[in-house]
Structures are given as structure tokens and as C-alpha cells.
């Protein structure tokens, strides 16, 4: 009763001001940017805009650079996130005690503290022909010249990008799974399943993994979006063709050739549509879990 009487309209001026700040600084720029990108790609905005046209979009079917870039970005993000989740699941289950109370409980956080710029620079120094790995290979007698080292930087399959992204994502997911393991009371559930006669593999397959993956799914999707739109790491470690989508967008946007700009905005519109669909998926899953 009290709650109904007092809280039905209890947002005051300060809350409204906070919300308006959020609208002005976050929502409006994003909304405006999406509209501007769509308008530019349709010839309705920009220096070269001469009225509505689909000619820029029709180029998607002629020149496959953007399509290839999207496929490359999705592939790299899928592989990086899937491998990270798999490795992190193994680590979080195998190293539960060291993660809770050992030194690993501190050091595991270090890779998460690496920003994209440092990560890119670091992996360039580690994976390039004269980098740390090549020096170790030379010390082991495997190679004698930097050119003999397999190309992991700017390689066509994005191996350098995947390794760099995994370096941050594996510790992140390991910590997340370790935390979810306790939050979801998995030790008790394991004990219950054991008492009902389930074997170790069955418990893992039917109880532990489904629960952890279900609870972590929204975070996994957001992590996928993060890799999909990454810029610094692909810029330094990625191939020159096809480029990851952020790199391609920036290249087309920053070119002096104004004719390339509509294509930059086509990339932006397509990326935003895909990312929004994924965010909606993550959001609905998170709400479903909250309601359950």
C-alpha cells in the first residue's frame, strides 16, 4: 500500500536530469549516427548526395569486398569466441581452487587489463618474423632466419587476430565461469546428481556445461560483438584483404576519394543491423534468465 502510494511517480528532477543526460549523450548520437549513415548510403546526405538512389547498395552485388569483409569478421569472431569459451570452460573446471585462493586468482586478471592498442602492439612483437616466438624457435633450432617463421601476422586467415583476442577472452571467461559455478550452486547440484547415480561425464554433459553456457550466453554474445567490431588488433595484425569490418569502414571513411564514403556507411548500417539483432538476442536471454 505504502509502496503503491509513494512510488507510483517518484522520479524527481534529478532522476529526470540523469535520464536526459543519457538521452542527449548516448541515445541521440547513436540514433542520429544510424540515420545519417543510412541516409548517406542512400544518397540523401553528404557532399555527393544527389537524392535517393540505390546505386551504392547495388555495388554490394558487384564488388564483394564488403561481403568478404563481413564473412571474414564473422568467421574470426566465431572462432575466437568459440575457442575462448572452450578453453575457459576447461580451465575454470580444472583450476577452481587456484582461481579462488591461489596466486592465479590474481594473475588471471592481468590479460583483461590489456587495451586493444597494447594487445595489438604486444602480439605484433611476439608473433612477427623477428618476434619473441621466432627467437624461441631459433633458440630451439627450428628456424635460422626470420623468413622461415610461419606468418602469423597479417595472415589471410586472421590467426594473429584470433590468438590476440583469445589472450584476453580466455581469462575473462575463465573468471566468469568460475564465478557462475559458485553462483549457480553447481557443487550441490553435482552432489545431488552423483547421489542419483550419474557418472562424471554425464554430470558434466547434462548439468554443468548446459547451466554454465546458458547463464553465460548473453556475455558470450556481447563478446562476439566485441570481436566483430574490434579495430586496433585487426588494424595491426589482420590481413590487408579482406579486412575486418571496422578497419574496412575506417579505410573507406578516411579516404580522400569521396566516392568511397557511401560504402563506409553501408558497412556501418550492415554492422549496426547485425549487432543490434545480436544485442536484442542477448537482452532477451538475460531477461528470460532473470525472470526464471
Amino acid at each position, binding site marked *: 500500500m*505504502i*509502496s503503491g502510494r*509513494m*512510488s507510483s511517480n517518484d*522520479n524527481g528532477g*534529478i*532522476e*529526470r536530469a*540523469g*535520464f536526459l*543526460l*543519457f538521452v542527449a*549523450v*548516448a541515445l541521440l*548520437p*547513436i540514433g542520429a*549516427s544510424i540515420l545519417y*549513415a543510412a541516409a548517406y548510403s542512400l544518397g540523401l546526405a553528404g557532399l555527393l548526395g544527389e537524392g535517393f538512389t540505390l546505386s551504392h547498395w547495388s555495388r554490394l552485388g558487384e564488388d564483394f569486398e564488403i561481403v568478404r569483409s563481413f564473412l571474414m569478421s564473422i568467421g574470426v569472431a566465431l572462432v575466437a569466441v568459440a575457442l575462448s569459451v572452450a578453453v575457459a570452460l576447461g580451465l575454470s573446471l*580444472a*583450476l577452481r581452487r587456484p582461481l579462488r585462493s591461489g*596466486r*592465479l*586468482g590474481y*594473475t588471471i*586478471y592481468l*590479460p583483461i*587489463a*590489456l*587495451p*586493444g*592498442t*597494447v594487445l*595489438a*602492439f*604486444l602480439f*605484433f*612483437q*611476439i608473433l612477427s618474423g623477428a618476434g619473441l616466438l621466432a627467437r624461441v624457435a*631459433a*633458440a630451439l633450432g627450428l628456424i*635460422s632466419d*626470420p623468413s622461415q617463421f610461419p606468418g602469423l601476422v597479417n595472415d589471410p586467415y586472421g590467426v594473429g587476430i584470433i590468438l590476440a583476442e583469445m*589472450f584476453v577472452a580466455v581469462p575473462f571467461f575463465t*573468471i566468469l565461469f568460475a564465478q557462475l559455478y559458485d553462483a549457480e550452486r553447481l557443487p550441490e547440484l553435482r552432489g545431488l546428481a552423483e547421489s542419483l547415480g550419474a557418472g562424471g561425464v554425464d554430470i558434466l554433459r547434462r548439468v554443468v556445461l548446459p547451466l554454465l553456457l546458458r547463464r553465460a550466453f548473453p556475455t558470450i554474445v556481447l563478446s562476439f*560483438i566485441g570481436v566483430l*567490431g574490434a*579495430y*586496433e588488433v585487426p588494424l*595491426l595484425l589482420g590481413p590487408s584483404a579482406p579486412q575486418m*569490418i*571496422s578497419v574496412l*569502414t*575506417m579505410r573507406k571513411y578516411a579516404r580522400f576519394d569521396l566516392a568511397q564514403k557511401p560504402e563506409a556507411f553501408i558497412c556501418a548500417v550492415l*554492422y*549496426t543491423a547485425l*549487432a*543490434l539483432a*545480436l*544485442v*536484442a538476442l542477448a537482452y532477451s536471454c538475460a531477461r528470460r534468465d532473470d525472470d526464471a
Partner: protein
Amino acid sequence: MMRKREIGKLAGAMSWIVGTICLLPIVYLLILSVAGRWRFPLLLPEGINLRAWSDLLGGDSLGWSLLLSTLLSGSVALVATFGGFIASRYIARSGRSRGLLFLAYLPFAMSPVILGACIHILYITIGLAGSAVGVACAHLTFALGFGVVFFARFWSRERRSLEDLARLLGASRPQLYRMVLLPAARELLLICFMQTFLLSWFQYGLTLLIGAGRVKTLPLLVFMYAGEANVQYAALSGLMLIIPPVLMLWANRRFLYRYM
């Protein structure tokens, strides 16, 4: 019994290997920042060169960038934390909280570089491109969205009852915040401040575009030096860039572990 001991040993060895791999970046950056001549295939540099470190301590551009990045990210984090706190209360108490909360997730969908390319014209039009204020506003697009989502779960039914009780006992709105809500959210406010600080601290693409290369934060320096093949300076800038997050993460591991 034997098997348990072997498994324990294996876990210990794995833990040591994983821990070493996690430490590698900081050690390697430290070595790179002081490395003199380092020919292939030597595993260690031939000598030590402290030029980059002495330039940093002497107040070179690296020192200024450090100061600029700290002030910029600190301001963004402060606004995002308290702005996110009260905006999320507005959303939670409004009749359309689900729809509005979904909108708060929008920044998570955007790649900073792609958003930067799209809003660049807006910042040019309003005269904020190329300025630190403009860069801070652009960072806030992401940081404020994070703050709103971060505090969404704080405004639970129990919290509402607590607020109602305080109001019933005569607390004014400022008293409600000062004596009830802010103390209850102290840990979360601290974590949100750190996370939004890092969101801004790590930002490269958006800073490059909106700052037009004139707002030289540390991430820009790392790329600039890396582009010039100035490994020593790039490594030192990188070290400066990761020291605050490392300290924050270590100091607050307990809280982060709980709220991740």
C-alpha cells in the same frame, strides 16, 4: 588416493603455466621498454637503454599524455557513474523500464570506430571535434550506457521498499540519496567508476576520430610509436596504459569477482 594427488599436482602445474602466460605481457613490455640493441635471434637484448624512461620522468609528451588520459578518463568515469546511477533509477521507476533498458544496451552494439565515423559530422557541426571535451562526450556515449545497465539490478523491489520506508520516516530526496541510496551502492559505485574509467582509458578509434589526432591520449601514442617502429616508446606507453587497470583490478578483485 594416489590419483587425487596426481590430479592435484597436474592442476598445480597447469596453474603455474597459466599464471606465467598471464604475466608474460607485463614482463615483455618492461623488457621492450628498456631494451637496447636486440638482434635476431638473441633471446635477450644486448644492453639496457633507459632513454624512454628518462624522457617520461622529464615531462616529455608521454608524461603529458599520461596526465591528459588520467583527467579525461577520470571525468568521464565520474559523470558516467553518477549519471548512470540516477538515470538507471529513472528507468527502473518508470512504467516502461523494459523498453528503456533495452535502449541502454544500444551502445554495446556499436563498434566505437564505426560509431565514430558516423557521428564525426555531428561533432564537426557543433564544434566539438578536435577537442578534449568532444572526446569526453564521445566516450560518455559508451560509458553512460554501461553505467545505466550496470545499475539496473540495483533498483530491486527490496530497494524500493527501503526507499519508501525512508520517505515515510520523513527523509527528503537529498537525504534519501545521501543517507540511504549512496551508502547502499558504495561498492557498486566504486566498481562502476573503475569500469567506466577503463572504458575511456582504453579508447582508441573514437579518440582518434573525434579528437582529430589533436587529443593525444596514451592509446594514440602507443599506435603512433608502433607505427614509427619506435618499440621502446611504444612499450613504455603501453606500460603506462596498463598500470592503472592492473592496480584497479588487483585492488578490487574481491568486488569484481562478486559482481562480474
